[in-house]
């Protein structure tokens, strides 16, 4: 069923047991992003050192796609330097805009390729990007 291409098992797993959820006490910066049309929200704490992501923690409310995507993002970008994190982020954004035509670079995106099916559901792309955009905002501010 078409639905299974959206709700990959990886996504449902991350939704049920998200990684790095729960905000850390210390951080370089905190950002809050939301999606007013559906009410999804993510708060993200970021710590970087020498241009490398040291800690990402987040909290939020939202649908399976937005929460799972934030979880995957937080795993994937941890330990990456700023440039690499942006490369991965760009690849993820590109995948989201692929309208179902790309399956994603597994090398780069790892669990992130599970979201390939989201690109066929335009209304859900914003969900998948919520956590990533919060990271981008935070990292850009820390690096500025």
């Amino acid at each position: 069923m078409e639905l299974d291409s959206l709700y990959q098992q990886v996504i449902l797993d991350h939704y049920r047991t998200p990684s790095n959820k729960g905000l850390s006490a210390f951080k370089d910066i905190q950002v809050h992003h939301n999606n007013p049309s559906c009410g999804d929200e993510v708060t993200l704490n970021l710590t970087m050192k020498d241009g490398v992501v040291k800690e990402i923690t987040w909290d939020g409310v939202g649908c399976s796609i937005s929460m799972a995507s934030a979880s995957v993002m937080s795993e994937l970008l941890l330990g990456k330097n700023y440039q690499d994190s942006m490369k991965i982020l760009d690849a993820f954004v590109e995948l989201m805009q692929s309208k179902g035509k790309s399956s994603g670079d597994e090398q780069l995106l790892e669990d992130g390729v599970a979201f390939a099916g989201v690109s066929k559901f335009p209304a859900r792309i914003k969900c998948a990007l919520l956590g990533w955009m919060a990271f981008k905002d935070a990292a850009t501010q820390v690096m500025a």
Partner: protein
Amino acid sequence: MSADLSRYKRDFPIFSRTVRGGNPLIYLDSGATSQKPEVVIEAEAEFYRSKNAAVHRGAHLLAEEASDAYEGARENVARFLGAQSSEIIFTKSATESLNLLAYSFSNPDSGIAVKSNDEIVVTEMEHHANLIPWQQLAKRTGAKLTWLSITPDGRLDLSNIDQIINSNTKIVAITHQSNVFGTIPPIKEIVKAAQAVGAYVVLDACQSVPHFEVDVKQLQVDFLAFSGHKLLGPTGIGVLWGKAALLDQLQPAIFGGSMVDSVTMQGATWASGPRKFEAGVPNMAQAVGLSAAVDYLTQIGMNNLAQHEHKLTEQLLSGLKLIKGVKIVGPTDMKDRGGVVSFTVDGVHPHDVGQVLDQYGIAVRTGHHCAWPLMKKLQLVGTTRASFHIYNNSSDVVSLLEAVEKVTDYFKVGK
């Protein structure tokens, strides 16, 4: 036995298409916007094809016919509401109606302008369109905004009504039916409380006028707003109704052609009646389309429609109660409620519920329903909402219930 209304569905061309998964369309999102019967679509098209001209302006036959069509629509809508046609103002939507009214109330030249020591009362279950314009009016004028709370079962809490609606109250703006719960608040009691202190009652009738008989004289409210697009009518048309004597005392809020009495470079004076609130070339084709929708509904009979929706709502409520993990948000019985049913599924975000339903061709609304303060009060991130109109039937309800079961399976609710 009630009338068989199943034949009306055929009048709506959209049901001949299929949606996701090749499924027939099961449209349960009429609370957001209704579908349109062919007669409405054709009425608008026919206006363009045969009598399109700027109303009230030209010296020619087309302009005459267009004016007749437009003013005829006004009379028709007035009749539908039990109002006088001089009390019907065409706007683009209920949202515009409510904003225009709020701006008219802050025009200091209005005989009944809101002052800084006035209070404006809303409720916790208002749609943003009947909340933010009043917040902004309060901000512009220095007036105070207060509100009636809701009870846990989604009814209005009237325990402190005498404090909330008090001698400073100038306006009470309230929904005629909650677009989240389906609750129909006790308008009579609120009108009584408002009249006792000389306050004006503004009724947001977006979810009532399209679904059951509404008579402004019986209701005894002062202003009323609704949108055409939820009433089987076109998009881009709304109505603001106001008591003639009050409209007379209000100054207009939007300015331009066809609403003036005289104009100089320094200033202008206004025409009388609804004209002064309708600046510019109006949404003529949409008014004509709305009038066709009113005719269509009148022919069905608003009471027949209300009964029809009542039965479907009852069926849905009983069905939902049997599904494990599903909670109805709002009244669970049929007392004072209409055909809007919100629910949550344990552990599944409404957005995901909606996505699964969509896969089965079922269109519902998910999220905060433009009633964010209400969601926060209920500590919900949102709900899934099903809402009805004439084209729905009991097999739609069965399909929805089956699909909700599948949602709980898919996301392994309680497993």
